[in-house]
């Protein structure tokens, strides 16, 4: 299967949506308009979209605390997400979860996670469901380089390999876990090297190249669907913002981020590739830019004017029936 014109436009739209969503949230947060803890995904778009373009709504993903990109790559409703970030009643989680806990099971998105390493064991469960019920679905755990060092992650990889579960472990290596550099904290230097220890195929991908990610994920997903068990993918990505919004980033070198934005922007790289190959025109992509810009603007306006939850909402959702 090759990517059709429609696929390429969709991939670009999803990446652009993530970028604009994140850039806008950055501004709103800095203006004091948004409550809570926010971790932005900007720079890593090609990873989420490249992987998720190979998935259906029935294929589950687990995410990290940097979860907006994974949600949008799985086509979670933008308005529902923006309202959630503003803590509104009609947010996708009723205002109860916020940025760190956005989930949309109807789209196969099992939730952003406030606990690093929480996702990989959970996604083994989604894969177990798929295997037990014979649905042919696959499950993808997105984890960071920091999260690759958690015991839960190691256990999940061994578990998935032993039970031959249809899982893809995607490690998005942006070089840092908060302030700690991954080349210091990951003992084997490249996370992909760990695949061998768990007896699963491993592949390292340049995460600024949508096509490389898409290709690698396509192969891993096909293997999982065919009963071939788990795959480990290490995706090398840049992180354009701080660890969280408000981070002064003193642990980063002068000019580091500017250089990343200049030379490692997956959206620019995608545009150059498809235009040079004559697959899409600049005008096609400009139109997407304009539409997404309007969409994000509208979502912010809607969120700001939407009602907050009320006292009656405080006690609901603890149990199935309260």
């Amino acid at each position: 299967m090759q990517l059709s014109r429609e696929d390429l436009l969709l991939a670009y739209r999803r990446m652009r949506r993530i970028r604009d969503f994140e850039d806008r949230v950055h501004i709103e947060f800095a203006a004091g308009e948004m409550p809570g803890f926010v971790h932005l995904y900007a720079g890593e778009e090609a990873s989420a979209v490249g992987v998720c373009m190979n998935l259906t709504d029935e294929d589950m993903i687990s995410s990290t605390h940097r979860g907006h990109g994974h949600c949008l790559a799985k086509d979670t409703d933008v308005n529902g997400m923006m309202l959630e970030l503003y803590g509104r009643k009609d947010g996708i989680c009723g205002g109860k979860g916020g940025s760190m806990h956005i989930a949309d099971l109807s789209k196969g998105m099992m939730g952003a996670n406030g606990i690093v390493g929480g996702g990989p064991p959970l996604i083994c469960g989604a894969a177990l469901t798929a295997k037990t019920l014979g649905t042919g679905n696959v499950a993808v755990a997105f984890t960071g380089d920091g999260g690759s060092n958690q015991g839960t992650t190691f256990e999940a990889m061994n578990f998935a390999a032993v039970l031959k579960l249809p899982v893809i472990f995607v490690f998005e290596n942006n070089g840092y876990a908060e302030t700690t550099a991954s080349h210091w904290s990951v003992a084997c230097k490249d996370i992909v090297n760990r695949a061998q220890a768990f007896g699963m195929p491993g592949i390292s991908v340049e995460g600024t190249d949508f096509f490389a990610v898409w290709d690698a994920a396509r192969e891993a997903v096909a293997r999982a669907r065919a009963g071939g068990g788990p795959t480990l993918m290490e995706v090398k990505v840049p992180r354009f913002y701080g660890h969280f919004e408000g981070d002064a980033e003193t642990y980063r070198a002068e000019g580091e981020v500017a250089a990343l934005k200049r030379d490692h922007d997956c959206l620019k790289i995608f545009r150059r590739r498809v235009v040079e190959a004559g697959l899409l025109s600049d005008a096609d992509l400009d139109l997407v830019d304009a539409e997404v810009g309007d969409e994000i603007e509208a979502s912010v306006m809607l969120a700001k004017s939407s009602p907050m939850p009320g006292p009656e909402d405080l006690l609901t959702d603890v149990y199935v029936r309260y």
Partner: protein
Amino acid sequence: MPKKTFKQALNEAHFHEMRRDPRVIVMGEDISGGIGASGEMDAWGGSEGVTKGLYTEFGEARVVDTPLSESAIIGAAVGAATTGLRPVADLMFADFLGVCFDQIFNQAAKFRYMFGGKAVTPVVIRAMIGAGFRTAAQHSQCLYPIFTHIPGLKVVIPSNPYDAKGLLIQAIRDDDPVIFLEHKLLYGVTGEVPDGPYAIPFGEAKVLRDGGDVTIVALALMVQVAMDAAELLSKRGIEATVIDPRTTSPLDLDTIVESVEETGHLVIVDESSPRCNIATDIAAQVADVAFHALKGPIKMVTPPHTPVPFSPALEDLYLPSAEKVAQAVEISLRSRRGAA
């Protein structure tokens, strides 16, 4: 006395004890910050800056940045403690203690007892608790009742900068595993803190205010809520005693009971969720030993039995307030035992 923030007070405690005793080390994720990165080393000093500057003075042998691996961090701290070091492990948010719970409650807490008194485990585990910061269900819990439940652990929950410094120094000098919990809304609170080192013994409650009508017990951020409630009540002609137990294990029940014997009324404010928490524990113990002294029902003011909500609108409703505490006091006073 100089005024300092809660955060500065904790930072000073680290400096005093690390200078005094070369066996004291600190460890945790981003504990200095920036390791292996290209910018500044000692960039963070832990996520709240409590350990800032330690790396510069004591170096990487004693200020240990770790990979993101809580079970290994706590297990290693506990193992080091039983073999001659005195580690202070920073776990960031108390919620993350879930990841390494075995190392705390099956290992650290049990060594002294299981080994017939032949082991000591002088480890301090610091972590942040509390709601009010819009950090939602996985970064806002007040988990001290869970640790209080486990024999062998000491549980310390300071409410002001002076106590924070003295209790942390005691925690580091203590030969038992100490869970040291810091409410995230207290870091910026200022108060008088001496420049030199001093230790506050565990199991001694602090009486912050003396009044003859009701005893209010509160911990951490809730101490301020209780003090505000006492002010409100005073304007309405009701005088409250406010007690901060400071440590829930050991618990200074005597000070609470003595006060209840004078006032006859007890209200406990507890930010942890309402079932099996510190409020229920203190209520039961007071009813057990001092039922004769109670003139009205013991009242407990807590959040509802829900996870912590994200939305500011809901989180504000979730937390106990001075008004809710004052109302609880008034209910206890109105429904006096034996009254018509």
